[in-house]
């Protein structure tokens, strides 16, 4: 049976070089980096090296890298940590409507704790406007948090312009770069970023390995208190094998970025063209060019995403969807709602993400299967029948 993974951002296999690099630190070099004796030496050295590699991926200083267990944790630490440390300066935080839930839910909590939160809207491509940011900043603003790129629709934010606006007003800028790091250049110096969240599993490193980059001078209060590991910002014995894995993945991601992203984007564009040619009534979500190279998000008009996902799964094609039926909360994607997509199209969205196993040869099969599945589900869709009868009342938004 075929197995074509088009859901690589949900999970990707580790690069074998990453696994090889990690293995000795589970048993051979099992020591605690904090130990003053012989056993601590190699783990300590490896941790320093891993920190340097992660810093290099974002062009920052190694002392600014705090290892965490997920980008969600990094986002929590960045926002809650800064809010707690800067509360005396002000209580206003600005973010966007399309952030990850580990940003949005943190802001919801802070909202209940007396902070004022402004969520900037996005346009139909998913862009936050630097002008809107400028207008939203007040003397009370202590933080701006806007993602580098959207994990769902792939749109890459104009970070340089956005950060420039915040800098002008002296407001620290955090960016959730979990989806972007390893796929587009993120340089904290060039962009002027103060806080950056990263996740190793998005660039073929291990799950459970992530980091927050913190610019020198930015003060945070820790979420986890205890020992002085990670400069006191995240207590607990360091997870050396995972940090080593993240370091190696960051190194490979940096060294291969140029070639890999050009190749991946070319393959993604080919898939996109073939799908739009082979399957009628598709709608592209996110900006056509300013998007992550491995991301494609399309809405299949007149049908619902979970049914599509299940049918494609039966054909060995593995995708994800922003439909409300695929979420536990039964709410359609907040990102698709924020770009103003009609509910019917949001329900029929498919997220296709490419990775190391993606091949040109698979494209015709994927197109043929999606064509068949869409036809079948449309044949039983009241929306499609209505469209056939009434014509353009629900015209496809091509």
């Amino acid at each position: 049976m075929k197995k074509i993974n088009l859901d690589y951002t949900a999970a990707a296999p580790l690069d074998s070089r990453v696994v090889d690099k990690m293995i000795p630190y589970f048993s051979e070099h099992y020591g605690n980096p904090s130990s003053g004796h012989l056993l601590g030496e190699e783990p300590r050295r490896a941790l320093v090296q891993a920190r340097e590699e992660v810093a290099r991926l974002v062009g920052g200083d190694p002392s600014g890298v705090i290892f965490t267990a997920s980008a969600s944790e990094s986002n929590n630490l960045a926002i809650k940590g800064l809010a707690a440390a800067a509360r005396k300066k002000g209580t206003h935080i600005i973010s966007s409507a399309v952030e990850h839930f580990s940003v949005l839910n943190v802001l919801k909590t802070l909202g209940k704790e007396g902070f004022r939160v402004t969520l900037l809207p996005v346009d139909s491509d998913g862009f936050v406007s630097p002008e809107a940011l400028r207008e939203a900043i007040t003397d009370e603003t202590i933080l701006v948090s806007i993602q580098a790129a959207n994990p769902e629709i792939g749109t890459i934010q104009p970070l340089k312009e956005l950060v420039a606006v915040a800098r002008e007003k002296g407001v620290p800028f955090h960016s959730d770069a979990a989806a972007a790091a390893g796929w587009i250049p993120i340089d904290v110096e060039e962009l002027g970023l103060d806080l950056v969240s990263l996740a190793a599993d998005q660039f073929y490193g291990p799950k459970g390995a992530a980091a927050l980059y913190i610019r020198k001078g930015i003060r945070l209060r820790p979420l986890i208190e205890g020992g002085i590991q990670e400069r006191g910002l995240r207590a607990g014995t360091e997870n050396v094998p995972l940090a080593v894995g993240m370091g190696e993945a960051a190194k490979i991601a940096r060294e291969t970025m140029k070639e890999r992203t050009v190749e991946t984007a070319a393959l993604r564009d080919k898939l996109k063209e073939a799908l739009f040619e082979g399957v009628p009534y598709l709608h592209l979500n996110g900006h056509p060019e300013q998007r992550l190279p491995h991301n494609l998000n399309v809405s299949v008009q007149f049908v619902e995403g979970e049914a599509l996902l299940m049918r494609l799964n039966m054909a060995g094609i593995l995708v994800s969807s922003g439909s409300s039926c695929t979420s536990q909360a039964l709410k359609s994607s907040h990102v698709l709602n924020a770009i103003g997509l009609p509910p019917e199209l949001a329900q029929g969205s498919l997220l296709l993400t490419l990775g190391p196993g993606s091949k040109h040869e698979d494209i015709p099969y994927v197109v043929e299967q999606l064509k068949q599945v869409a036809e079948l589900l449309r044949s039983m869709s009241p929306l499609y029948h209505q469209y056939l009868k009434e014509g353009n009342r629900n015209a496809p938004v091509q």
Partner: protein
Amino acid sequence: MPQYSDKVMEHFTNPRNIGEISEADGTGEVGNPVCGDMMKFTITVKDNRIEDVKYLTFGCGAAIAVSSMVSEMAKGKTLEEALQITNKQVAEELGGLPGNKMHCSNLGADALHKAIEDYMAKEKAQS
């Protein structure tokens, strides 16, 4: 994707009675794209029995399986019997539904009942 029963998967894979009866005696529509599910049931009635039943469904795997199951359960039943079909029965016949998908079974029975009520109202208006 939730864990569906074999029966749900079987009906989802091979849904019965898809379509729309053009000269239907009764029509029932429920749901909207905002909530994610829409169903349209059409029936023909002969001698107080549901002679034929078809449906169109926009929705998830559970919604499609529920529509298919409801159509099978309703076919050949008297109107009174068909009105007795409950959401719970539909879910049971399908070998259960995941907790957050129970509302799909509500939609199926509701759409069928609406179609029957539509027929009854038309009959009443004629007599």
